[in-house]
């Protein structure tokens, strides 16, 4: 997992499989970096994510809340087709948009 700031947005490059087990570490690392870097928005890069089940939806909903409390918004990009399906199923796309690329996401979140 990699973190970097672009203006007030914390970009999180997620990796590998997102399930109930791996969500624990993801949640902790994202929250710690969000606070430490005093970020406003959260942007998740899904390029290197190979699997995500509904535990990942719970994790994203929790991070939406975190960003909302910080006065920011949350976005996703590079979402693989398989993962897009569960995002649609969960209606989580009402809380966060999946953008086609980083530039578009940053423009929209700013």
């Amino acid at each position, binding site marked *: 997992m990699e973190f970097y700031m672009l203006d007030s947005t914390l970009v999180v490059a997620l990796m590998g499989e997102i399930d109930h087990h791996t969500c624990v570490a993801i949640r902790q690392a994202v929250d710690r970096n969000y606070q430490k870097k005093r970020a406003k928005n959260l942007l998740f890069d899904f390029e290197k994510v190979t699997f995500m*089940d509904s535990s990942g939806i*719970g994790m994203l909903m929790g991070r939406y809340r975190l960003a909302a409390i910080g006065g920011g918004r949350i976005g996703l990009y590079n979402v693989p087709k398989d993962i897009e399906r569960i995002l649609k199923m969960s209606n989580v796309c009402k809380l966060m948009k999946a953008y086609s690329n980083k530039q578009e996401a940053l423009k929209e979140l700013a």
Partner: protein
Amino acid sequence: MPKRNEMQIQFLSQSVNEAFARVAISAFITQLDPTVEELYDIKMAVSEAVTNAIIHGYEDKEDGIVAIKCGYQDKVIDITIIDEGKGIKSVEEAMQPLYTTSLEEERAGLGFTVMQEMMDEVEVCSHPGLGTTVKMKKSLEK
């Protein structure tokens, strides 16, 4: 000649085994030469059922037993996930989308919804105090 095969695994109710369960089922199902999408669907459904067993059945106690039986006849796959945890009081209620009992733990309440979406049939049998059995069926494309 109809193809028929069966396998069983069991493991402790530790979250690290969620990935193990997905890999084990994938390796077995690969014998049928499924599409990438079909394999992904099955992995999703297994992941949800095993996660439910660990979180809800055993309430994160790590010494419970989760068993998976998997078999196929031609292109029809049967997967059964069994735990001997606390069981579900109302299966009907638990299968409602967005139903969740763990509010503090960021659960989406989508486990059964995902299983139903990914598989052709999902049947849940549960008795409080005795455990839960989830039976799922999926036919692969011709």
